[in-house]
């Protein structure tokens, strides 16, 4: 409301000014040589985020920008900040996982495998997961390569091969972006109802998910708070990656031209390292980190003991559901 009011005032003021002061806006008589702009002065006067721009007759709006100092900040981001952030986040996460493994080891099923399984993820669930995950891996690798490959990979292959590799990486990145986005959307639809945070999650979090102590398992529904966290990271992160990535895919549609693109690459890059770090942890706990966990996305069938330990409430619900199934569906004994 306040903002609207401000705009209105500004518009009125403009109207008033143009009505009252035509002579000022007219520029009738002046001394062009003496009054010429000075580059130095213009650059000094530039506010943060401003470009030195003017008019150009070709229809390419970007071309009207003469000097954009933001290029230098973007360069600084790309060359210095991003590697630092990436290094800290990714190597930090890797280190943390290694450390965790060393300390905690593989989390076992306390009661061992029962031999009896329960369906955790149907094939559609698993298709959604793996389509997204598969794309993600290639997107992550090609993305990391574009950002850091020059430091790490180029010396191994030489410029030509590396450029070709990176070129195909870019292609893969461009094309796999679409199934990735579809996967994220599908996962959202499939799982959102079980990922609404509730009171149980607080308790789970309070106990640290029982992850740091053996034999301790806070109750959880179909998804515990940790998994919900992963879900929301994937959904929110995926959404932001999609939006920022969309304009990088279609650069000529980007709002605000190069400034917009600079923002989108920055967001895309920073978020992606966080995203990758999170997915590393997710992948760890879903595979080597925990006995029995991989089956959930592998076959879709998990051991009932594993399920009872980690998702007691969910198992109870599932079993209740099974009992309530109309009797005619089960042959009478």
């Amino acid at each position, binding site marked *: 409301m306040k903002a609207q009011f401000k705009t209105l005032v500004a518009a009125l003021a*403009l*109207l008033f000014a*143009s009505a009252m002061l*035509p002579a000022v*806006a*007219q*520029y*009738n*008589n*002046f*001394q*062009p*040589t*003496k009054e010429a702009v000075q580059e130095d002065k213009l650059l000094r006067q530039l506010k943060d985020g401003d470009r030195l721009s003017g*008019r150009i*007759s*070709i*229809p390419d709006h970007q071309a009207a920008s003469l000097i954009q100092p933001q290029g230098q900040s973007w360069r600084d981001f790309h060359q210095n900040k991003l590697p630092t952030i990436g290094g800290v986040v990714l190597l930090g996460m890797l280190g943390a996982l290694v450390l965790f493994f060393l300390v905690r080891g593989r989390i076992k099923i306390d009661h061992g495998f029962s031999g009896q399984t329960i369906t955790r993820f149907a094939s559609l669930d698993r298709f959604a997961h793996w389509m997204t995950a598969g794309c993600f891996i290639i997107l992550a690798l090609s993305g990391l390569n574009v950002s850091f490959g020059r430091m790490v990979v180029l010396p191994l*292959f*030489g*410029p*030509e*091969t590396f450029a*070709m*590799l990176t*070129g*195909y990486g870019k*292609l*893969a990145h461009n*094309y796999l972006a679409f199934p990735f986005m579809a996967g994220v959307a599908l996962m959202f639809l499939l799982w959102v109802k079980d990922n609404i945070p509730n009171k149980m999650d607080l308790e789970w979090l309070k106990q640290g998910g029982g992850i740091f102590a053996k034999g301790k398992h806070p109750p959880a529904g179909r998804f515990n708070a940790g998994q919900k966290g992963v879900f929301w990271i994937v959904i929110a992160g995926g959404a932001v990656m999609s939006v920022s990535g969309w304009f990088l895919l279609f650069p000529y549609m980007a709002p605000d031209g190069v400034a917009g693109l600079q923002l989108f690459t920055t967001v895309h890059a920073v978020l992606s390292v966080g995203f990758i770090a999170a997915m590393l942890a997710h992948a760890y706990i879903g595979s080597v980190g925990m006995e029995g966990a991989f089956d959930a996305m592998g076959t879709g069938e998990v051991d009932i003991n594993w399920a009872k330990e980690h998702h007691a409430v969910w198992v109870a619900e599932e079993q209740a559901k099974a009992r309530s199934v109309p009797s005619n569906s089960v042959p009478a004994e």
Partner: protein
Amino acid sequence: MLTKRKEAIAGRARLSGIAAGLASGVLDRRSFLRRSGLVAGGVAAIGSLSLGAVRKAEAGPVAAGVKSEIKKNVCTHCSVGCSVVAEVQNGVWVGQEPAFDSPINRGSHCAKGASVRELVHGDRRLKYPMKLVNGEWTRVGWDQAISEIGDKMNEIRAKSGADSVYWLGSAKFSNEGAYLFRKLGAFWGTNSVDHQARICHSTTVAGVANTWGYGAQTNSYNDIRNAKTIIFMGSNAAEAHPVSLQHVLSGKEMNRANMFVLDPRFTRTAAHATEFVRIRSGTDIAVIWGMMWHIFKNGWEDKEFIAQRVAGMDLVRAEVEKWNPEETERVTGIPGEQLKRVAETFAKERPSTFIWCMGGTQHTVGTANVRAYCNLLLATGNVGVFGGGANIFRGHCNVQGATDMGLDITSLPLYYGLVEGAWKHWARVWEVDYDFLQARFDDVPAKSGRPARTRKENMELPGIPSTRWFDATSFKADDVDQRDSLKAMMIFGHGGNTVPRMPDMIKALEQLELLVVADPHPTTFAAISGRKNGTYLLPICTQFETDGSRTASNRSVQWGEKVVNPIFESKDDYEVIFRLATKLGFADKMFKNIKVENNRPVAEDILREINRGGWSTGYSGQSPERLKAHVRHRDKFDLVTLRAPADVPEVGGDYYGLPWPCWGKPEIRHPGTHTLYNTNLHVKDGGGTFRARFGTVYEDKKADGTSTTYNLLAEGSYSKGSELTDGYPEFTFGVLKKLGWDKDLTEEEVATITKIGGANPDAVSWAIDLSGGIIRVCLDHGVLPYGNAKARATAWNLPDPVPVHREPIYTPRTDLVAKYPTRPDGRQFRMMNAGFSVQKAAVERGVAKDFPIILTSGRLVEYEGGGEETRSNKWLAELQQDMFVEINTADAAQRGIADGGWVWVYGPENKSKAKVKALVTDRVGKGVAFMPFHFGGWYQGVDQRGNYPKGTDPIVLGESVNTVTTYGYDPVTGMHEGKVTLCQIQAA
């Protein structure tokens, strides 16, 4: 200026080597893919995807090892005359190099000049002759086209007379082409032979010639380097003549010169001025008189100069009296103090030059404007000096030459006029009977109360100006002072969107029985009307595909070499004119002294004929041999003086391009004239005086019966080394005899003079003396053959002998119309000029209320003229993709118009409208809009791309400004009003 590399780089770091070294032995692309498994299965498609294709070259590169020929020609766009250096391999123009050796452009070009190579690769050129058959464009052969056209012309001639065929020529002709075209008109038997000068500087030519003798730029672009004060008025040279700014800005820097730009629009030229003065469009005379008011008031005028060399300044002084600062500001909008500053600087910081263009000339008062400018120069003594003068920047590459060659409804070649003596002169040059020529013309019966005309009278009467051919077509035969109205248009190299009132033009176009467009492009003429038949398109090549000379604005004549052969089936103007003349049956007479090879007249021979007849303007000394020598020795000419040192072989002592007048025969080696009327030089060094063109005295009879006699000859002023130390009239054999100088003539010369003179040899003037003897003798005595006169501040033969301010026909200042009305209606050029009635009606109808914005027009640097050629050039077209209207920020805000948005521009006549993009800018003042005039192909919101023959549509199309421009014609030349009308603008 630029540093050149001494040698090619040897030790350049080459990535290719490094890259290859690294890559080899590692993995090639294919094996990499195999190994990585990327080729397998579903991703196989990637292999066919482009990683970002590399473009294909279109013409070029310059192949190594193939012999490159260098061809030198002249840019075919504006009148600066920039040299073009073409690299040709195997008959293909592969590269364009800077012509550093040219003193005119020193390697430089503008956007147009730097892209001329495209013209001869142009895939949008007209490729073969075509005709409309029931509305369909159909390919025909040359022979068929010429034969059908000729038959139709003869039919029209028999039915309606020779005057019913209009010959619209081109400022893009070479001199030789222009001359042949004028000659063709003469042999056909009409004076309706015109070209673009009508719509650009016809008023300049009339105004300037009526002031001091010749209608041309007095100095040169290069000479502006000498100026201390420069005024641009109605000239946006930065866009129209970009390379001229090299000289202007250098001069401005070196001399710390004052540069004033007086214009309704803050142009790219104005951006470099030391001071910009915004004027109201169409008030030039008021501005100039306002300046001169200060000059006379403060005694800043050059009294000695006026006394010696100017006649009638007292009458001007009387008019100037009325323009005190208050009245001037009321009319023009310029504060008195500012105008005083401009006036004082111009008068005191000399030499001062005055530059004008179409902002001054394209008005109902165009000739008067020009005369006012001349008066400012005369009052301050700035004519005939280096660094001063009237630097009139002309438009097209050869508009000066084409004007010189008489593509003009009022004259035969070289300004001889249409009088009997002129016809007889050219009949002698052409070696045809005067009677034959006369018989070609119509006699005109008495009509509508106007007396009949004999063939001879008709032959000496000016034709119809190109600005009004469509009125002459659609008016009833009784309203056109000739046998019949127009039935056929022969249009060689002229755009169809260049004259106001296009809705009226389209109607006339549809009434024509025959329309022939001979041009490299179909032009707007071909696409705009609903014609179904009787329309022919003849593909003409550009000047790069033929040879010949062209005259730059500074009167320098430059020879252009053929770069490549005409592309597709196009032919040059010479050949097409010859074929037409053959079909019409007078080729043998017309080309009697011109060699024709394979149907193509030889350019050098045409120029020699021009030399043989062009005494009056000094077109006699520029033989093809001399011009070619100038091209060879271009680097020898000085940048500022344009003169080659005396010791240079072939061209020593010459001014570059032998700027006319280049007196006498080539053998006497006159150097040409860099600065006209310059008394500080000997006539043999290009010196001069004002031309004695208007007699020796003038008796100005006043209404009260008294009269004042003016001496029109100079007093105490003469050119350096002159044996006559006072004013003198033009030379005839008789005058020579009186001075006893006839002894200096050779026997041969006397024989020629006697032969020409017949019974009265004494009357043979220098201008018709085919021997060149009178001129030669004059030069030896240090005098100008044309005499030594005063310039006329008052031109008694013009409608307004002293220019008076007159409001534009469509003016926003209706309050001023009563005091400053336009001239009364009158018949001019065979038709009624009803300007006064139109103005009166507009005021009474309150047009200014409904159409409150002044609409003016002008050039863009990327395009030229009607723009068909430049809008078809992909390198240029990309830079201006939309027709637009410049509208002031305040006007746009008021109308809710956004920059880049579509708007309708409405004109006050014919319910006309144009849909264009808005360019919201403060270049134009409040209440003023500007539209460029190069666009066509859209009409009142409708895209007409489909009307062009397939593949010949220009890349960029757009509304023509002339759809919404309006009525208004200069009474002296028929110049249209192209710079002030009214319009309304609304968001579309």
